């Protein structure tokens, strides 16, 4: 046997050995990885959030790239800039977060105003006795209103506190008289369903509405609050460590790729990075634009700037969830419009009593602007996901992980779609398939 043949045989044996080794190793990694994911599922979400934040804020880090400055200092500067912006944003927002007194006042107002609107809706003027719609509304909405009232009911401690604030408490001036009147009216309020069912003249009907059932096993199921808190401590840590990464993680993983796929992997990783980065940053800008539009619109409708900004921030952030974001913006906006008082729209000719209608129109205009202008402008057509896929993804996300699942459904679809498309395209270009 010649030396060449011997060498060939040795090489063949080595290749076979290598294949067995790689397969065994891959199986082991899969088993251990699967077990860890199952056992440490609580950590998945904080890790994803931390990594996504690091990804979104990477351009800020790039802004601080000064060649004569050490990498660590550059990263610290970028963290300081992000921290400063966040600090001012939270500080501004904090001023508009209602305190204990305002929360109580809002609850009382909301309950009173909702019931006032409901009574206006079902009220039957003398000339409309034959109106068949009102009883129907009463029958359908009555139980719903009872549930609302139950959830807005002040507990004994809150009632005592409200009365204290009504008289002036903690160095604060007394609550306005009309809110105290609302509070008293709320105390006298009865259940709609019972009133309808009760025989004439019944003074105090027996309770027919069952109290809301306690959530079964809510306290015993799932990880404890401490565990959740310690898991969420991971998110900022991941953000910080990924911030300090100077391409080492990418180099490590590219280093594991076989030589045959080296250039392919570089191209795929790069394209994925571009697509996902553009999508995430585009979505963030889109949410910001939606928030600004809503804030301006609400201010023009006469809603106080602080409240308008608070509603716009929540609605803008939730806009990242297609369809659901708009619906939530509508609910929040309408909720406020129903309880708002002394509104003076900045646009002349608007009737303050029709505020709810204007809010609906504003949300619709913002949604149309988002679809027609913002999305094509900031996201382009780089990542087109079919509306049906969007709906299915959101529902699936909510079933798997609730609100977080809804929020991450579309980015996940984008990642998978881009990864699959790029991977197959490149595999063909590199003549591997």
């Amino acid at each position, binding site marked *: 046997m010649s030396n060449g043949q011997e060498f060939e045989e040795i*090489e063949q044996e080595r290749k076979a050995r290598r294949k067995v080794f790689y397969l065994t190793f891959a199986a082991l990694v899969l088993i251990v990885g699967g077990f860890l994911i199952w056992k440490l599922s609580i950590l998945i979400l904080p890790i994803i959030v931390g990594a996504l934040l690091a990804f979104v804020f990477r351009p800020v880090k*790039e802004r601080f*790239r000064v*060649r*004569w400055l050490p990498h660590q200092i550059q990263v610290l500067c970028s963290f300081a800039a992000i921290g400063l912006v966040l600090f001012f944003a939270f500080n501004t927002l904090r001023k508009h977060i209602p305190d204990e007194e305002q929360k109580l006042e809002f609850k009382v107002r909301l309950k009173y105003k909702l019931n006032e609107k409901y009574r206006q809706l079902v009220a039957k003027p003398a000339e409309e006795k034959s109106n068949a719609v009102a009883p129907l509304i009463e029958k359908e909405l009555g139980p719903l209103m009872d549930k609302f009232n139950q959830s807005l009911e002040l507990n004994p401690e809150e009632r005592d506190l409200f009365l204290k604030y009504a008289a002036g408490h903690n160095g604060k001036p007394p609550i306005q008289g009309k809110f105290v009147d609302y509070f008293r009216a709320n105390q006298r309020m009865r259940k709609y369903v019972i009133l309808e069912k009760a025989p004439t003249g019944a003074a105090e009907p027996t309770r027919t509405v069952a109290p809301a059932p306690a959530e079964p096993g809510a306290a015993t199921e799932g990880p404890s609050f401490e565990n959740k808190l310690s898991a969420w401590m991971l998110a900022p840590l991941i953000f910080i460590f990924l911030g300090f990464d*100077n*391409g080492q993680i990418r*180099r490590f993983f*590219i*280093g594991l790729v076989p*030589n*045959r796929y*080296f*250039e392919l992997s*570089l*191209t795929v990783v*790069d394209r994925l990075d571009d697509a996902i980065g553009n999508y995430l940053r585009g979505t963030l800008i889109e949410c910001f634009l939606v928030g600004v539009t809503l804030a301006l619109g609400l201010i023009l409708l006469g809603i106080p700037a602080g409240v308008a900004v608070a509603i716009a921030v929540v609605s803008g952030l939730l806009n990242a969830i297609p369809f659901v974001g708009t619906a939530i913006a509508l609910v929040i906006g309408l909720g406020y419009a129903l309880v708002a008082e002394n509104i003076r729209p900045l646009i002349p000719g608007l009737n303050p009593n029709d505020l709810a209608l204007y809010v609906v129109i504003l949300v619709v205009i913002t949604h149309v602007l988002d679809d027609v202008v913002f999305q094509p402008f900031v996201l382009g057509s780089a990542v087109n996901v079919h509306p049906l896929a969007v709906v299915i993804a959101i529902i699936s996300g909510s079933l798997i992980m609730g609100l977080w699942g809804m929020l991450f459904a579309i980015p996940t679809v984008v990642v998978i779609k881009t990864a699959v498309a790029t991977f197959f395209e*490149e595999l063909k*270009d*590199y*003549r591997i398939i």
Partner: protein
Amino acid sequence: MSVRNLTADKLLWETLGRWKRSSPELDRIQFLKTVPFFDRLSNRQLKSVSDIMFERKYDANESIFEEGQPGAALFLILDGKVAVEIFRETSTTRLAVLEKGAFFGEMALLDDTPRSATARALERTRTLALYRNDLRGLVHRDAKTACRIYRSLAGMIADRLRLTNELVQMKTPTDDVGSG
């Protein structure tokens, strides 16, 4: 070179000299200094380039890239031998055998047009790969360094074009040019 660059260079080399007297990083920078492609770069700039390069190891007869594949990176030979070949229907033509310090696949730094030849390791070979988009990223971070690399690349392409023109002129009879 500005005073600031000189100070940065001095600081870098003092640190490297103190802590990494025989580190692979220093070896790599020393190696890059010997490659004509990077001869215009200072030590600090070589460090920037070294930071974005990937080291790859190839077995004998293992393909580094194949003719027709989209190019993505330039390769420098750290040690070993690489054959550059083109395959035609029935035959294989070896265009060159490259050794330590040589580089190939440089056109991939400009675009992803298909490779014009196949590169294959003739023995166990170590290479350093410079990915196109990493070099583009360097344009934003350290424009001067990236600019010098692109300038080297342009100079090399100009040399090749000159050589090709000379070859064409040598093969074309002078009377053919004016006869048209």
